[in-house]
């Protein structure tokens, strides 16, 4: 038995529709079935909070509090890269005594500063129905998707993005003033350029890695997949600069561009050039067609293909440990052939997978290691027990 990354036990308190729940899953995969509104996705969301960030819905933490409760908590025992580890995260609403509301994160009982340190123990990737419009929707969604991909390779990426956004907010605010100090602006632009180039370079590096797993099969040498191969690029001014010249030079160039666009930026009330405007472009490989023009079913297949390729790439870069995958309502949209193809690829990946669906019959062939649970109104039982 090879080492795996898996949630062995998870305990939820006051979380969404769960007053109290303990689930001993073991290292095997988990299939959650039940009617709409039973709380299947809520459980996946709880698992997703064991990774850095705001979880798979990206919801504000106070919305996760069960009605009538003062806060929520998610505790889990995992088999992680570093051995068994206990992760905990909790949030309490402001109780009116002046103690601010906030999220706490613990690793083996020790309080952590922020959720970033979770990234050193887990890799959790997800696919949700909300991502179905990724290719046709706004570029900001694709950028966020891309940044999550990068984050799984490189836990420090979020710090870089936050630093860039902070410098940008400072500059935007300064530009809004009638006589903005030119020296101050230059100082911020130096910072903005350094951090912006770092953000763009990390994205390009991640896409480059991903190409080896999601790109044309003959190039990657992998097995033919049930999901179409893709062409991935990150489009943006700063990305183009990095591809054309050394990073230090790109930094200078971007700084000059910022300097020259002060007037335009002040007029627009925002920064017009930078990696915060970049877009992830995805092309259906075999059809040579932009993803947004593909059929709904094809778009879903493309997305699954990217997530699976990403999982394989993360596995290769994370000591051979496959990431935990959370697939919300994925099976329902696939024809039988692709569904079994998906289960086959998941088994090949060898990691723990959490899947949800309303119909139990969809999960036939989901693998011998998977346990099927019935979810009903915040209660969970092993199917057939």
């Amino acid at each position: 038995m090879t080492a795996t990354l898996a949630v062995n036990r998870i305990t939820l308190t006051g979380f969404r529709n769960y007053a109290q729940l303990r689930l001993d899953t073991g290292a095997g995969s988990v299939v959650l079935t039940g009617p709409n509104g039973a709380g299947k996705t809520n459980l996946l969301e709880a698992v997703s909070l064991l990774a850095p960030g705001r979880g798979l819905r990206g919801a504000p933490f106070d919305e996760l509090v069960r009605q009538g409760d003062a806060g929520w908590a998610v505790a889990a025992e995992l088999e992680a890269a570093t051995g068994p580890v206990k992760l905990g995260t909790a949030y309490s609403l402001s109780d009116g005594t002046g103690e601010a509301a906030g999220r706490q994160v613990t690793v083996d009982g020790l309080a952590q500063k922020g959720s970033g340190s979770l990234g050193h123990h887990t890799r959790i990737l997800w696919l949700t129905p909300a991502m179905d419009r990724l290719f046709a929707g706004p570029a900001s969604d694709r950028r966020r998707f891309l940044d999550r991909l990068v984050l799984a390779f490189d836990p420090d990426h979020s710090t870089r993005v936050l630093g860039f956004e902070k410098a940008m907010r400072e500059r935007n605010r300064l530009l809004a003033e009638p006589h903005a100090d030119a020296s101050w602006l230059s100082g911020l632009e130096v910072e903005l350029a350094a951090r912006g180039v770092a953000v763009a370079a990390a994205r390009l590096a991640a896409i480059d890695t991903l190409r080896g797993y999601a790109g044309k099969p003959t190039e990657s040498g992998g097995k033919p997949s049930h999901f179409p191969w893709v062409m991935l690029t990150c489009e943006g001014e700063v990305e183009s600069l990095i591809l054309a010249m050394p990073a230090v030079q790109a930094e200078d160039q971007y700084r000059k561009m910022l300097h020259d666009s002060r007037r335009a930026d002040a007029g627009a009330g925002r920064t017009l050039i930078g990696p915060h405007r970049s877009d992830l472009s995805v092309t259906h490989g075999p059809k040579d067609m932009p993803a947004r023009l593909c059929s709904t079913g094809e778009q879903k297949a493309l997305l699954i293909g990217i997530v699976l390729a990403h999982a394989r790439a993360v596995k290769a870069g994370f000591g051979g440990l496959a990431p935990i995958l959370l697939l919300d309502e994925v099976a329902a949209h696939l024809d039988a052939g692709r569904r079994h193809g998906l289960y086959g690829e998941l088994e090949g990946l060898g990691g723990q997978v959490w899947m949800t669906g309303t119909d139990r019959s969809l999960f036939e062939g989901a693998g011998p290691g998977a346990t099927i649970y019935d979810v009903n109104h915040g209660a969970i039982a092993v199917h057939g027990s």
Partner: protein
Amino acid sequence: MSRRITGPEIERLIQLLARLPGLGPRSARRAALHLVKNREKLLGPLAASLKETEEKVLVCSSCGGIDTVDPCTICTDDRRDASIICVVEEVGDLWALERAGALNALYHVLGGTLSAIEGVGPDDLNIPSLISRCGPGSPVKEVIIAVNATVEGQATAHYITDRLKDFDLTVSRLAHGVPVGGELDYLDEGTLSAAMRQRRPF
């Protein structure tokens, strides 16, 4: 609401202690209990010391540091090299550098960093006084900018550098890079590329 376990005076002491950095309600209670138990050895001297500090504490009109005399002990120390000024964000940073004993120079405390969002501009910091300390006729030959490697800190560093560029002095800043005892493999790309950019001959 929990029941009260001590009189209002001790409750007040606990509440005040809990507002100190690094102390939460629990450790404040423990500190208060320790003080009360050691009334003569600790509580009395502490109270006297607090009172005395409150009466005498001053901000140095030259460097912005904190002392009980103005100009401060550092500014009036003639064994220090007055041709070098080290610029820091806060008094805590000055103390950290002094603990390290890394240099024998004068300091200048900015009192924060530039932040457009928080409405902190150059005139809200001790920047004008730094400029006048470096003006014509001053003995200053070098200004070392020792601010934090944060967005605001570095933007402030660039700003000061720009304001001092016409003066006849060297502006330097702390090196960014490999920490003492650090291993390259564990460094993030930003730190590594900064270290590479700022490499120097052996």
